[in-house]
């Protein structure tokens, strides 16, 4: 009885005690999936000797940091969507980056003007298609063309990847036109939105639809064979087109980071960000995660390069983030997910 009680309290206290700061370390709160961040953290530790502790959180990152308050161990906050990143800044849980290295490495449209956050890597929102029906070129506007009626697959309009695309459409054409466009896309859907991006590829192969929308790195993951032979057939089975806005470029979203307001290891956090935007960090993003680098001239992998040259749309990420709420409301208004 007593022994089990001692064991119990040991277990509880093991959980209670926070990580003591002995060696140099940095604590990362991230909405990035652990499998995608782990190679970067390992490379950083190998180069600097700084230990990286991570916790992968999905929704509620800002709320968690805010609730932990002054005692929060969080140093670096990382998200997979630029809207969520700006949200962190708006909710007051970050502090300015103040890094000359970041300003030098990252183009101005991919970071906050006031230095509160920076993008770390990019992924493009692409059109995937049945090989027999693949268009040579397509614009995002074309997705509302009635010729695709009953032929488009896409995940939920309320997923941040799609909300950001719709927000970019608002930035280009204004809310009224974006709404009409979204209603047009909705009318073209082959099935109710749902699932993930990869399901779009499978649904095309399954004959449920002819074209769909998905992120670039899934193409890399599938086609490279890194996910196994079955996925390689999915990736190779669909055609991939880089769409553009009429009079613009391809829509990209970013993973990005900001330093936490109460970061106990601010210097280490800044070093981690600077490493991630350095050529060595960008190489890991490109090779392990099949993402587009943010720094001009940095290389992408062969699989991604084979998709053709990417012309990034000119709308600044910060502006896309600003229209996010309106985009999310439009999704409900046109009944996109119904």
């Amino acid at each position, binding site marked *: 009885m007593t022994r089990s009680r001692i064991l119990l309290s040991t277990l509880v206290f093991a959980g209670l005690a926070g990580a003591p700061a002995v060696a140099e370390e940095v604590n990362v709160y991230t909405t990035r999936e652990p499998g995608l961040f782990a190679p970067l953290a390992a490379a950083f530790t190998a180069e600097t000797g700084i230990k990286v502790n991570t916790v992968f959180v999905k929704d509620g990152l800002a*709320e968690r940091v805010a*609730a932990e308050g002054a005692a929060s161990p969080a140093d670096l906050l990382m998200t997979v969507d630029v809207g969520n990143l700006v949200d962190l800044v708006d909710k007051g849980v970050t502090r300015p980056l103040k890094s000359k290295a970041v300003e030098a490495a990252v183009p101005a449209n991919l970071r906050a003007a006031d230095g509160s956050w920076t993008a770390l890597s990019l992924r493009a929102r692409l059109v995937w298609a049945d090989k027999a029906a693949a268009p040579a070129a397509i614009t995002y506007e074309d997705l509302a063309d009635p010729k695709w009626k009953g032929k488009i697959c896409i995940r939920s309009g309320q997923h941040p990847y799609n909300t950001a695309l719709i927000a970019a459409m608002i930035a280009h054409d204004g809310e009224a036109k974006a709404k009409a466009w979204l209603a047009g896309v909705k009318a073209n859907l082959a099935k109710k939105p749902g699932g993930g991006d990869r399901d779009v590829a499978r649904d095309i192969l399954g004959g449920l639809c002819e074209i769909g929308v998905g992120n670039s790195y899934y193409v890399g993951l599938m086609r490279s064979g890194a996910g196994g032979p079955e996925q390689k057939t999915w990736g190779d089975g669909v055609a991939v087109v880089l769409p553009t806005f009429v009079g613009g470029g391809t829509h990209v979203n970013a993973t990005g980071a900001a330093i936490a307001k109460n970061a106990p290891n601010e210097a280490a956090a800044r070093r981690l960000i600077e490493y991630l935007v350095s050529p060595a960090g960008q190489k890991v993003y490109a090779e392990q995660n099949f993402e587009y680098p943010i720094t001009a001239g940095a290389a992408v992998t062969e699989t991604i390069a084979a998709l053709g040259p990417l012309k990034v749309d000119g709308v600044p990420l910060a502006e896309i983030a600003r229209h996010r709420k309106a985009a999310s409301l439009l999704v409900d208004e046109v009944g996109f997910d*119904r």
Partner: protein
Amino acid sequence: MRRLLGSAIAAFDGFALAGLAVAAVALAPIVALALIAAHGGGEVWRHLFTSVVPAATLETGLLALGVGGFVVAVGTASAWLVAAHDFPGRRLLEVALLLPLAFPVYVLAYSWLDLLHPIGPLQTALRSLLGYARPADFRLPDPRSLPGAVLIFGLALYPYVYVAVRTVFLAQMTTLTEAARMLGANGASVFFRVALPLARPAIAAGAALAIMETLNDVGAAEFLSINTLTAAVYSTWVNRGDLPGAAQIALAMLAFVLSLLVVEKWARGDRSYAVIGRASRPLAPRRIDGLAGLGLFALGALPALLGFVVPAAHLVRQASTRLAFAGMPQEILVEIGNTLVAAALATVVAVGLGLVLVGGRRLHPGSRLHRGALRVATLGYAVPGTVLAIGLLVVFGGLDGVIREAVVALGGRPTGLLFSASLTALVVAYVVRFFRLSASKIETGLERLSPSLDQSARTLGRTPFGVLREIHLPLLRPALAGAALLLFVDCMKELPATLLLRPLGFETLATHLYGEAARGTYENGALAALLIVAFGLLPIVVLTRLGRPAPSREATAEGAPA
């Protein structure tokens, strides 16, 4: 008023104290949510009522009705099948029917969708059998639809009803069933006129659990292209950065679910479902052999086959492909340890407290204090996991802040995070979230014991605690086993609160699996999913043995002052 106060004071004892404490902890995150909700204006509702509420309410309602109907029909019928009949393979079936419990709903959904996809194994085989070359030429209806969702949720959740109802059928209606049989009632009329009415509280309790679980789900619903009102909570919060608005919707849903529960209780009235006499003598099942017996077995095996065997086999196949391709993930052993420790701690705490609170209510039949505390303590189950976790974040963070300031004011060094991001936080979250499972199982168990047992024991000089320990505890063994089973398995599967509240670097099998699922690489998570299922099987098997009333215990029941 004074009399009410007087009776409250008279009834105030250790049970009341424990009840109030648990109720306070359970209420804290909901109060925190209400405070968050109060920060917002009402602007979210105009948008919701014009564009979201009509369609989402219809879809939510149809899903809840469908799942409710499915779990009541399948759960009750399968429980009656194995409790009142004896046929070859019955023992096996008794356990097998519980197995879908081991599956998180979204893993079950993923497995079935993968199997049934036009380019998945089943349809590919079917096409080659029928001589079709391409999926475009021939395919089955897409399960990503409302009927598909009803089936998936129903298969995953019917065990809630099965567990609750089986306990009732097994041991607590023996006398009446035998009387009915003696009076010449056939199987069907015994079922419809005796068993079903007596099992009503258990059916309602199990169905309520299943429906609440369905309404709070987000993962499986996304796979299945279903948009419940919970999806509106998420888009309001995550995409529009409007946490107050999201909290308002969540609280409105909570109010709606609670009102449904109240209506059910009210419709049931204050009829007693207790059975007087030898409460725990097992029912003598009707022996059915030959072809009819085989048919019964096949019928009973169907839910277990579809809800467990087929999807589990698919997971095994995927996990082994994955292991061959990428090897064993190194961190998996630590994750198993974390998962088991957190789930076991929460199970012990929740079942213990469940016994104290439900027992306290039982022993003070007229006390509003004891009843109220129990009701409040079970609120957490009716709130989506992430929303509850947000409330808990605020509570733990606030607590840490207060302690820190108090320590500083007393001249000490500022303390760090004591409750936030700790194992304690996780265990508290599980207990708050799943307390209803424990309370509901124990309550239905107790409802079957005649209050005359308590009265006699009190007359013979037992204290309320003595009655609980000496009379209720032994008779409640099956119900407690069932409660522990549901708790443990659900804690292991729990995702949203675990994800948000766990310490830095603390991974469980569920968070590992989600880390893969979130990037769409489900097959990488197949091993973790399989382990969750496997570790869920162990308590299922052990606890069904415990839960079966042993014939030898008849003597104990008779020896008790009845």
